[in-house]
């Protein structure tokens, strides 16, 4: 029953909440932005890495041995995970200009590199926490501070210089202070939900290997 509660309630609710919180953009008016096509592609890559690292064992969500209803629950979790992963990455990508392109390309390369490095579950979760944390600081602290309207004369001068040097490609539309807190909550919730996914355990891997050996022996 505990597993059923986790698969049917906790994980879908957590991932859908990540999708909802991550979509909120607070500026002059509040808008809800679904993940872009590019973010969905990045999200798919992240799901693939989660499977590869054992953070997610898909056979514990979708399998012949499970009931039809349990498989539907599993499929819902997978779909919600994909959307939440896409939305989480979308939260970290700046809204416009050069930083948007740079962050997007960086995330794409980073995810491909992570897939090539094939980390285990713990290393992947650590790596994601560090990456998300760094990108969060860059977007919501450094870029936000650079783009915020100057309060002192010196800052205004520096801002004008920076805008002139970068032809306005660096500065971002100023977001509401609450946007940072929402983004942080989204990231933490996503990482917690990722941690709660049914993982590939050593015991489970051993059972699968034994099944494979048994099957191949039977064939001989």
């Amino acid at each position, binding site marked *: *029953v505990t597993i059923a509660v986790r698969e*049917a309630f906790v994980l*879908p609710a957590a991932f*859908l909440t990540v999708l*909802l919180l991550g*979509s909120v953009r607070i500026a002059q*008016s509040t808008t*809800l932005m679904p993940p872009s096509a590019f973010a969905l592609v990045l999200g798919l890559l992240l799901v693939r890495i989660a499977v590869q690292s054992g953070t997610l064992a898909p056979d514990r969500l979708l399998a012949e041995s499970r009931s039809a209803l349990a498989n539907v629950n599993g499929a*819902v979790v997978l779909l919600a995970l994909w959307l939440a992963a896409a939305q989480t990455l979308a939260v970290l990508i700046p809204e416009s200009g050069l930083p948007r392109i740079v962050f997007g390309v960086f995330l794409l390369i980073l995810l491909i590199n992570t897939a090539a490095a094939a980390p285990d579950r713990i290393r992947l979760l650590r790596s994601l926490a560090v990456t998300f944390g760094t990108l969060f600081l860059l977007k919501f602290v450094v870029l936000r501070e650079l783009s915020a309207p100057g309060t002192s004369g010196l800052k205004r001068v520096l801002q004008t210089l920076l805008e002139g040097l970068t032809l306005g490609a660096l500065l971002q539309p100023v977001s509401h202070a609450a946007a940072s807190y929402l983004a942080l909550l989204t990231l933490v919730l996503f990482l917690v939900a990722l941690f709660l996914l049914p993982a590939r355990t050593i015991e489970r891997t051993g059972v699968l290997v034994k099944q494979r050996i048994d099957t191949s022996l039977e064939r001989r």
Partner: protein
Amino acid sequence: VDERTDQLTRLGGLAFTVAYAAFIGWLFARQPQTVAQITGGLAATIGAYRVDDQAFADGLRFFRADQFVEARMAFARADPAIRDANTQFYIAYSYYRQGWGRLYHDDALYAEGLSAIDRALILAPDGRLVVDDDNLQIRTGEELKAELEAGRRRDSSDFNPMRVFRERK
């Protein structure tokens, strides 16, 4: 018993997830700006949304006294979720009357009026909006929209000196 509990839990979870996902989809589609718009929109989907009659009556009183800003505040109080076509029609009409001038019309107010009448036409059943009010010369959504659009258009009739004799509707 455990098997049955497990199935019920999974079924309940599935229903909850579908409802939650539908709610998020609805939010993406409607883009509500306030909590009142969210609650009002949800109430409207099950037919439970009601306009505040007292606030609407206040708005109508202000509107007839040519106190358009006050009228819009009262209408906004009457229809906080922006779900009532009739109220939105009066809001659009208030922008029309306030922006109307013998020599020129206020483009900004007319633009607000157009947004309001567009909202009203979307909310009206089958897009047909007829207001039963003898005090108004314009009683349909289409007429009001045409009037607002005509006011924003630049053409040769703008230079017709006879326009000073036109009356506000």
